[in-house]
């Protein structure tokens, strides 16, 4: 595919050559150990840090996993339960290590890391364990007179060998959450964690083989070359979390083998704020959905706010007050928010601020510290529509506020942009809520809060349009990694000779009656009493 041949520096939204990203070119140890002789092992020991996982290795890996998958072990309920329990155990036993890795990669505060990465995945795991049996049961469905007598059901079966490509901002949960779904559905899995979060990547590469069945679940670390090699293989499904640019590359690579894909992408998630709200709670929830969310580096964090010209100053004041309450007088000193992940993103964000005419729009914050990779929570008022801040996904602690005359005007603003992963409305006006829900197309919507819909296992989590395709969480994870096979069982009793050639003239009449559900007519025609 032409697009893959284009030289690229990175698959994540960062480029490789920065001081803080380790050039990760080694691959997971356990891969070689499964199939090597001692000669190869000794070579490996010398070249460990310099081996590149190439297309050949990827092909062998997939072949090996497919061979294991075909043995049928992953289809068993017991196997799936054992793996899920293994994940649960891993999360409990290695909580400290996970939190430390997240600290290293993102300076993520412990409580935030605990809630957004540890707790979420642990409860997903438990939810899957509890529900797995019922998810796995075939679903009996109704049949009609058309196929009478018959019985029909929909059977869930694993797709086979699946590839999960994760990202850097929630590097633990965005890796483990899809893995939970893939395992629950009975697949063999290759996980490629993000190299932009190297400590978590390494931790996953070390821990997964310890706690899970490594003949069917593997981790491949690396960056562009490794990911490219993996994407050339025939997978039964590819699950990708990241940005739209690479999402296109993943989908294009999947074409060759007609591999179905799930793309969890991003977008500019707007928050519309009405004046009839409890302003203090609203401000706190916006903070929770922006800066307490990996410092705005989250696919569903509030990207920008739209509110009325009248209300904006009050909202800014409330945000100012609540920010101080949450993060102290000098937010740059606070350890309660993540840092900017690396220099590349730091520079990307400062570029947004450095654009002509932007700095005069700053009403709060604006300070940056390249040394510590910190940018203060920054609020801007009415930056130009065509500015970078308003056209690119921000993914950082900058919050533009756009003012409109009436809140209905916000709808057009949102609809003029690509469909986001999430959209938020803070309002007590039920009419407005209804209109918002009906007219704004997004992956998901939360009213009077932000981000929360992600935490509900009963709700599908995924995008639409530019923000992605497919969904997961809870049963949706199981479904997304399953093939739903249609099964119809027929017997030989009551075989009607009418259905075979040479066709009698009355057969057409009978078929018409059948398809109209006209039972009486069917009987009359069949018995010869009615000749259509």
């Amino acid at each position, binding site marked *: 595919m032409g697009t893959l041949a284009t030289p690229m520096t990175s698959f994540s939204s960062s480029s490789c050559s920065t001081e803080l990203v380790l050039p990760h070119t080694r691959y997971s140890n356990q891969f070689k150990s499964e199939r090597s002789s001692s000669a190869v092992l000794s070579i490996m020991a010398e070249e460990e840090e310099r081996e590149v996982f190439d297309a050949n290795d990827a092909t062998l890996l997939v072949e090996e996993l497919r061979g294991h998958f075909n043995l049928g072990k992953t289809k068993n309920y017991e196997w799936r339960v054992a793996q899920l329990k293994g994940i649960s155990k891993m999360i409990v036993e290695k909580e400290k290590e996970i939190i430390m890795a997240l600290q290293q990669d993102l300076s993520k505060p412990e409580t935030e890391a605990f809630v957004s990465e540890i707790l979420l995945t642990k409860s997903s795991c438990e939810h899957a364990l509890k529900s797995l049996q019922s998810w796995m049961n075939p679903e009996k469905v109704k049949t009609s007179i058309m196929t009478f007598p018959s019985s029909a059901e929909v059977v869930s079966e694993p797709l086979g060998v699946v590839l999960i490509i994760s990202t850097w901002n929630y590097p633990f949960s965005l890796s483990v959450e899809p893995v939970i779904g893939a395992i629950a559905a009975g697949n063999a899995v290759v996980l490629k964690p993000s190299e932009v979060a190297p400590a978590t990547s390494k931790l996953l590469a070390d821990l997964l083989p310890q706690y899970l069945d490594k003949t069917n679940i593997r981790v491949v670390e690396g960056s562009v070359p490794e990911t490219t090699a993996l994407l050339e293989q025939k997978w039964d499904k590819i699950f990708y979390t990241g940005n739209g640019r690479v999402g296109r590359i993943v989908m294009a690579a999947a074409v060759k083998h007609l591999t179905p894909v799930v793309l969890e992408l991003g977008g500019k998630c707007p928050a519309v704020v009405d004046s009839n709200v409890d302003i203090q709670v609203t401000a706190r929830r916006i903070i929770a959905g922006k800066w307490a969310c990996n410092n705005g580096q989250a696919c569903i964090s509030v990207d920008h706010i739209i509110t009325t010209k009248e209300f904006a100053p009050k909202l800014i004041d409330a945000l100012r007050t609540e920010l101080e309450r949450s993060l102290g007088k000098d937010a740059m000193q606070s350890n309660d928010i993540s840092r900017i992940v690396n220099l590349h993103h730091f520079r990307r964000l400062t570029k947004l601020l450095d654009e002509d005419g932007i700095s005069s729009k700053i009403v709060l914050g604006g300070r940056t510290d390249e040394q510590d990779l910190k940018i203060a929570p920054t609020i801007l008022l009415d930056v130009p529509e065509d500015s970078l801040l308003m056209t690119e996904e921000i993914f950082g602690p900058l919050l533009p506020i756009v003012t409109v005359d009436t809140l209905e005007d916000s709808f057009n603003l949102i609809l003029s942009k690509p469909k986001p992963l999430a959209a938020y409305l803070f309002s007590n006006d039920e009419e407005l809520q209804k209109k918002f829900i009906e007219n704004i197309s997004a992956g*998901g919507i939360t009213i009077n809060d932000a981000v929360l819909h992600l935490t509900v296992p009963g709700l599908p989590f995924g995008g639409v349009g530019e923000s992605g395709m497919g*969904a997961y969480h809870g049963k949706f994870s199981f479904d997304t990694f399953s093939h739903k096979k249609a099964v119809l069982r027929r017997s*030989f009793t009551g075989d009607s000779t009418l259905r075979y050639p040479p066709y009698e003239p009355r057969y057409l009449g009978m078929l018409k009656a059948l398809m109209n559900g006209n039972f009486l007519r069917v009987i009359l025609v069949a018995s010869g009493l009615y000749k259509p």
Partner: protein
Amino acid sequence: MHSNPSSMEQTAIAELNSTFISGATRTFQWRETQLKSLLRLLTEKEADCFHALYQDLGKSKLEAFKDEVGPLKKSIDYTLTHLKGWMSPKKAGINLLFFPAKGKTMPEPYGVVLVIAAWNLPLNLALEPLIGAIAAGNVVVLKPSELAPATSSLLAELIPQYLDIKAIKIVEGGVDVSQQLLQRKWDKIFYTGSARVGKIILAEAAKHLTPVALELGGKSPAIFDFQSLSSNVEVAVKRVASGKWGTLVGQACLAIDYLLVEEKFASALIDMLTKTIKKFYGESLNKFSRVASKRQLDRLQKLLKDPAVADNIVYGGSVDKDALILEPTILLNPPLDADVMTEEIFGPILPIITLNNISESIGFINSRPKPLVIYGFTNNKTLKRSILNGTSSGGVLFNDVLLHFLCDELPFGGVGSSGMGRYHGKYSFDTFSHEKAVLDAGYLVELEARYPPWNSFKMAFVRTAYKLDYIGLLLLLIGLKRYPKVHKD
């Protein structure tokens, strides 16, 4: 509308866009009206439909109704009955911690969708997806197959008469038109046809992140467990015959492509099959449906001309070139690497492959791409289980053929190279909808622990809360529960 001018097309798409934005297609009334009109079209213009299908493919009235018009009418009825329910939001369970939050999923249309139909069921494969697209509230461009030109013209003529032309447009044409259409950004593409073209469509869709449903084909096998069938074997043979030659002489994605049987029963089976063919169709060739075109006939003849294959013809092989008829042809154990055993046949040729034991059919099928359907003719429960659990296919049908196509409650679609996505019944509605998650949080309860600054109390709160340990939470809140110190508080 004709092959070019693209400016005409641009105006058409612009109109579709503004219709969608106006919200006209979102109402139940609009969708119901369109579906009822479509039903009227199929009733009032039934004769025209039959005539077009006869012109394009030599389809008899019976086959035209049985395989195309009838299933469409049934689908519309089913959709009309259930549409309101499908359109309404579905509640999602929220745990008590978030009380009084309410969660639900709401289906919404994707927007402007493209439906591309195949030639072998040119009416059904155009309108069945259209039913789903309309039911889900989208605006649609439908491109019928140019290889069934009479049906394509008929649709181009009738659809504007019966349906809302501001929302549903027919674009006729061949490859160049398809290519042009594919340059645009669609909100969804639904394609029925071959894997080769499916890949082209998927590649174009990838540029715009357009979700795609591909209804493809493959080599759908029939496993014939002669022994276990015992007294049912005659009926089973009749069903195999209709599953091969009963639907446009095998030119259907669901047709039995090849058959697997134990060696010792092969000649008995062939004997019964040939007797059945004669009983169904008589001795002369003129009772058979014709092959769709000279090109198709040439392709099929080429499969038989392979010298390694020609030797294995045990029945049939005769051709009436002018009438475009190829007699039902049975092959016994052609080489597995011959084209007839590697390409989808899509015609009246039936290879029979013999095995030592019928259980070997599982491995045989698994060593090949996943088919659209597997037909299992057997009364043996163990074999049924092996087929169901040991193979993967779009669908599985036991002891009959084709019928699952008619089940509104079964998802119809492939897996692997037989396709992605599914439709029929509610699955049609779903495949053209985005299921939007909506959470309505409340202002009633405020959880301090959600906000920085972080401290040990909040950490303990969160731990306890997620265990849904409400007593613990209460104790914590009133100060009676001890918690470890974390952070630097």
